[in-house]
């Protein structure tokens, strides 16, 4: 552990730990994404691989769910 008042060593590894690869240096600048290693951990490949399988799955997901009311933003997210 670093001594009180001292900086952590700014090695590549240390920097990644401290910032988790997401920093925002100044206004209107796009923050940095997560590290490639972290993104590789998060990535989930599709189970359905062929275009036909994908289309059929998407159709199953998006067809036929009918409700009697109109959903508005305030039903899932406070403003």
């Amino acid at each position: 552990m670093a001594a009180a008042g001292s900086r952590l060593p700014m090695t590549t590894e240390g920097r990644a730990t401290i910032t988790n690869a997401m920093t925002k240096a100044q206004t209107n600048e796009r923050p940095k994404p997560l590290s490639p290693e972290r993104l590789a951990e998060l990535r989930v490949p599709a189970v359905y691989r062929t275009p036909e399988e994908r289309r059929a799955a998407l159709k199953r997901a998006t067809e036929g769910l009918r409700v009697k009311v109109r959903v508005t933003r305030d039903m899932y997210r406070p403003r």
Partner: protein
Amino acid sequence: MSPTGGRRPATHGVFAIEDQELLLPDPIALDTSFVVEALLSTQPLHAVCDAFLTRIGDSGVTVVTSDLLAVELAETAFAIALKERWGGRWRGHRTDGRARRPATRLLNDTISRYETLLLSIDHFPVPLADTASVARDFMTSYGIASYDAIHAASAIAADAEAIVTLDTGFALLPASVLTLYTDRSRLASCRKSDRTEAREMCSVLIRS
């Protein structure tokens, strides 16, 4: 589409998902508002969002979602069941046990459809823990609401250039941070915001 011989209007980093010429960046982030509209066939923009989702599936691009999205979908299903039973007074009946059974059925159906959607597309599910600090920055820098900030931060975390949303609140973010893909009816209200750094992205994202 600009009139023939006329000048293309400033996009301010906001584009219509109905535009067949619109390019799909890879990855691309999805907001809850878009997914709700795509999953529920009774929603007014269902056809538009379903068609855009099919485009995403066909193109093979990866989608980015926040873990918050599934929670908001569950909340939507619960609210629908309450609203179907109680109409405009649904908020006062959250603890009504009679609404819970249909709410559970609808919730399970909605989440199951969402999972089927994700099985058909490569995907980055971004945990809240990976976005909290950037979401806070977005709230304090741009005044964006907390839930929107989390979805935007998730997009950035996975390096998505654009988020697909029907929520005009995302227009508080500058175009240099995130491009918005929305439906045509929301273009004007999103572009009213001061998204001043959009011009460079326009040339990248729209085929000339």
